[in-house]
């Protein structure tokens, strides 16, 4: 009998089409990175390795490209967001796992619905509630890093809660019962077993949330105040890399001197986000 080799001709057609689609996407990704790198190169050609990049004065039409206020702004709002959102998300997850296991499916659906809310809605909410409240309490303008961070915290809360529920849900019932059977109280089981076992997935969830917060633009832009000076406190207005990019798209169109600093800022964001992705991969490997 003749041995059967290969497959009938045409059997791979669909695979090839799909492969082309994947290749296209990959090339697009590289193209975006390449354009940003090219813009950055042009920036260096136009302005040299401008020392003002590390400064605090941002006047791109006057050769002053201090990005520090925006980097600081991005870091601070992201930090506020994660510090506020993580404990709340953990509380949601623990409550769902421990006391509402039968409602878990419903709560997951509600949270997924919240995840789907466009960020501009969170911005609007911040603008109409958060900014006036901060103004009323502090006597300052209200547009501030704090407002930006809190809006982000609320915005990432549903995502972070969902991921935390998934993380805690992966803890085996056998372990939980094993712990209880050893005379552990429910609190001890939560602290020493459930949270301890889930710390890597929870870290992973936090990194994803940080990535989301770091990249968010619209919601922050609506409440942060858009001041380009280095902020000196949580209540002072500021800007982040993303919001300043948004502001300057209209102020620094192509052809205007200093335009290419925007490419550099975008590249910075891209690298930071990529760093987050790598970090998630690393933590996944630790957990194995």
């Amino acid at each position, binding site marked *: 009998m003749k041995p059967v080799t290969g497959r009938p001709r045409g059997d791979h057609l669909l695979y090839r089409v799909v492969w082309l689609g994947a290749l296209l996407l990959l090339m697009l990704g590289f193209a975006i990175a390449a354009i940003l790198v090219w813009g950055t190169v042009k920036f260096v050609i136009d302005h040299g390795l401008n020392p003002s990049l590390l400064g605090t004065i941002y006047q791109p039409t006057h050769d002053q490209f201090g990005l520090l206020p925006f980097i600081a702004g991005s870091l601070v709002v992201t930090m506020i967001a994660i510090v506020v959102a993580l404990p709340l998300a953990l509380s949601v997850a623990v409550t769902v796992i421990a006391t509402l296991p*039968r409602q878990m499916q419903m709560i997951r659906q509600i949270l997924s619905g919240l995840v789907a809310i466009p960020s501009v809605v969170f911005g609007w909410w911040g603008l109409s509630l958060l900014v006036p409240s901060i103004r009323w309490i502090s006597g300052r303008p209200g547009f501030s890093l704090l407002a930006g961070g809190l809006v982000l915290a609320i915005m990432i809360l549903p995502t972070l809660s969902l991921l935390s529920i998934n993380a805690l849900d992966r803890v*085996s019932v*056998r*372990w939980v*019962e*094993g*712990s*209880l*059977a*050893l*005379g*552990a*109280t429910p609190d*001890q089981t939560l602290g*020493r*077993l459930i949270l301890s*076992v889930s710390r890597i997935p929870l870290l992973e969830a936090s990194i994803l949330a940080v990535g989301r917060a770091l990249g968010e633009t619209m919601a922050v832009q609506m409440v942060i105040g858009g001041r380009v000076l280095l902020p000196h406190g949580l209540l002072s207005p500021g800007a982040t890399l993303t919001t300043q990019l948004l502001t300057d798209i209209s102020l620094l169109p192509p052809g205007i001197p200093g335009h290419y600093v925007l490419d550099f800022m975008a590249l910075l964001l891209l690298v930071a986000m990529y760093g987050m992705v790598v970090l998630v991969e690393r933590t996944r490997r630790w957990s194995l």
Partner: protein
Amino acid sequence: MDSKAPDLAVRHLSVRYGEQVALSDVSLDLEGGQVLALIGPSGCGKSTFLRVLNRLVDRSLEVRYEGEVVLGGIRILDPDTDLVALRRAVGMVFQQPSAFPFSVFDNVAYGPRLQGIRSSHRLRSIVESSLKKAALWDEVRGKLRRPAASLSGGQQQRLCIARALAVAPRVLLLDEPTAALDPLSTTKIEELILSLRGDYTLILVTHNLQQAARISDVTAFFRQGLLVEIAPTREMFTAPKCAETEEFLTGRYE
């Protein structure tokens, strides 16, 4: 509780999950230090009986129980019973090895640490003596920092027994401890159970009738939530009183 392994007395125990009856009017006595084997078809209430004894049954939805269960002076079903104290006195080993995803050492030290034991010297000696009692020490000494998951299934099950012994219980509940194990590991667990007999009161759920015959002093046959027959194992396996028991033991059941 005194140093003797505690006696068990069960009177008119009934357990229901919602409308479903899991155990109905079960009464039995067991002398401390003996091995009681619970046999019967799946869903007959053996596991429920076991989970009543450390009140893990409370975790089930809509569970209700009545009757009286006294274990070495502890009235188990009392609403005021201190569950933490009860579960320290009554250790449990599950069907699937449930070793925590920690190191071997941290698995065994989990229980003592819960009780506030911090001294690394004391923890070490508890871990060592528990592993020795569970006949695992020779295989894991020098590997105490390795993850428990790196052990074989049979070793993990003995680790779970060591973990249970580390809190110095007086009673051990074993829910089909060898169901997921190979014959060699099964033999080791059975030898271990025999070596613990006398010092502990052991209650074993098993689907393996030979196992019940080999290692238990008393055998109880459950069917559909009812205790059909309880007798010294030798009697039960040579001359069962009930026709139903005989049918089950000879494999003509179902």
